[in-house]
């Protein structure tokens, strides 16, 4: 079932949590709402769930306007960040709750609960209380409980936020596989870009109550629509340069920038990802910055190098592939020449590739 949010606004006192937000999740898709805290992503999820009433705008499930329906009527599965398991009920009773209030026959409830506990690999723990489970197990019980009622939509609020890094990693891969199995339209909220990219089909990047960009993880990462998205999605070197006469000037380097052909100089911010910076032993024809190597961290799949340009007083983070690093063999103190393979500016055009 598809979900559509149409021009939804929501205020909490003087705070604009959502400003005219519209977003769509296709049937069977897995959508991530990604943004920093206070960006409105959780409010949007709660509006979709019916736990929050929007001030204006509407929410559609398929073609049905559900804006005025309560969470109870919407038949959704909601997974809370802190699980919100019923602490006095066993795992079995937690999962059975939604079915009991729907007055399912007892035998049918038992079969359904067993089936779900098998799905989340907790079939041996059905007599346990939530306090006797680990955090990851609790979250899976919460998921089973939400799925038991055969929801039209599965909504997850920072589902792995309270778990430690390793369990989080495992659980999100498992969630992705689970979604591929059951194909219920799912939306989850996260502030972790890595999590969003790894799990979701489509990522919605939010900032101060607005949507900055919607796209597949690759689209969003490769073609960020705004400076915010560029900055939010991981590591980026920020340069202050200027645009003039169809050229971009950055710290002594110049690049063609045909979209800005004006005479007057326009100061702008230019963004370069660490893996888009190249190091050379000698100056490059395309223009490069002279710098010296301050720190080298070759551990991991990429070598991370921090270089400092005395001349311009700026530091840069560079990521080299292992092969390139083995070729260069840079050491702290070495003089190197830095050139970007790709520079992005967001004024006035969203992107520019050299």
């Amino acid at each position, binding site marked *: 079932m598809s979900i559509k949010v149409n021009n939804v606004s929501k205020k909490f006192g003087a705070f604009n949590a959502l400003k005219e937000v519209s977003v769509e999740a296709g049937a069977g898709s897995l959508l991530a709402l990604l943004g920093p805290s206070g960006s409105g992503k959780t409010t949007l999820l709660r509006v979709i769930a019916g736990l929050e009433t929007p001030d204006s705008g509407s929410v559609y499930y398929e073609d049905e306007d559900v804006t005025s329906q309560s969470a109870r009527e919407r038949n959704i599965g909601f997974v809370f960040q802190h699980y919100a398991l019923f602490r006095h009920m066993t795992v079995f009773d937690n999962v059975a709750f939604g079915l009991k209030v729907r007055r399912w026959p007892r035998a049918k409830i038992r079969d359904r609960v067993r089936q779900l506990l098998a799905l989340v690999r907790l079939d041996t723990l059905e007599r346990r209380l939530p306090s006797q489970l680990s955090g990851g197990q609790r979250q899976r019980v919460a998921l089973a409980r939400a799925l038991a009622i055969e929801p039209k939509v599965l909504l997850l609020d920072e589902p792995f936020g309270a778990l430690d*890094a390793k369990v989080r990693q495992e659980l999100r891969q498992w969630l992705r596989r689970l979604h591929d199995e059951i194909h219920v339209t799912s939306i989850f909220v996260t502030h972790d870009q890595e999590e969003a990219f790894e799990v979701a089909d489509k990522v919605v990047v939010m900032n101060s109550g607005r949507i900055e960009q919607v796209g597949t993880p690759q689209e969003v990462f490769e073609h960020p629509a705004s400076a915010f998205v560029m900055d939010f999605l991981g590591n980026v070197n920020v340069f202050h340069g200027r645009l003039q006469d169809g050229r971009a000037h950055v710290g002594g380097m110049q690049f063609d920038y045909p979209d800005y052909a004006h005479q007057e100089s326009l100061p702008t911010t230019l963004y370069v990802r660490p893996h888009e910076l190249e190091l050379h032993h000698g100056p490059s024809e395309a223009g490069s910055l002279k710098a010296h190597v301050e720190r080298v961290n070759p551990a991991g799949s990429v070598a991370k190098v921090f270089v400092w340009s005395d001349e311009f007083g700026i530091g840069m983070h560079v990521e080299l592939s292992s092969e390139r690093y083995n070729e260069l063999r840079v050491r702290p103190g070495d003089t190197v020449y830095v050139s970007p393979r790709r520079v992005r500016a967001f004024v006035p055009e969203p992107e520019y590739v050299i």
Partner: protein
Amino acid sequence: MPEPARVISGAHASSGRDHPLLRRILIGLTLLIVGVLIVIPVVNIFVQAMGGGLWGYFSNLFSDRDTRHSILMTLIVAPISVAVNTVFGVAAAWTIARFRFPGRTLLTTLIDLPFSISPVVAGLMLVLLFGLQGHMGPWLREHNIQILFAMPGLILATTFVTLPFVARELLPVMEAIGAEEEIAAISLGASAWQTFWNVTLPNIKWGLLYGVVLCNARAMGEYGAVYVVAGHQGGRTYTMPLQVNKLFEDSRTSESFALASLLTLLAVVTLAAKVALERRTRRELLAATRPSEVPETNDLPHAGAGPPSVRVNQTRLRPELIMTTAKPVDSASAAPSQGMAGA
């Protein structure tokens, strides 16, 4: 048991080692005061009550019609007050814990008011309201409704005095537990009633019971407010505490002590229940805030088989450093020695 308890007892032990004499003096003094003010009088009540033997005790309690009636009155008034306050307390605590509304703080303060008002004044307020000279007195008389000097007055007075107990006990428990489980229940399709009975009530049950026990003890023992609204009609509107006083004034000391011992027994039972419930309430509160202590287990299939984490740290350059690049740009591009030919 919670950590702090251990820490505190440890602190006591160490300070005790430092000043053994001071410790003995303090303990001795405490025991003396508790003994003189509490233990001896309480034991004395039972000794006096049992002075005439077991048979005398029971005949003192049940042979007099008025005394029997006073026990009956207390057994009717107290449970009704407790029931009213339980419903009110749960509703008030839930409202205050779950909603933010104007006047919320005022409401919390008002609930405490009966604690600070003298019971006699509380009784007097009812007299002023429902008495013949009061605002509603004439109307009540016209319609032949008896409130003062009758059962309704006793119940009103007792309810007023014991109003804060349940709400006060429940408020911190409800706040600690939070609304998340209730929201989860509603998202799973439960109605408000189903949510209350299946989720809210089981979570607060020990705190609620604790409040009810305290409320009941106070309701049965209430004297001042009830005295004012009861009028002087022994055998009709007297509850146990009033009857104890009346018997004593009539110099029927052994009967008075027998009835007093019954009230005291009730207090002892309450105390035992209180200690037991307090422990459970504390556990309820603690469970509401404690994270999982169960270690994570690898029970997912293919767990950890994914690609290595590629977390990238946010390493933005400091803006004041960046800004400096703007200036040297021109000079740098003008200097051919930099090797920065245009693209």
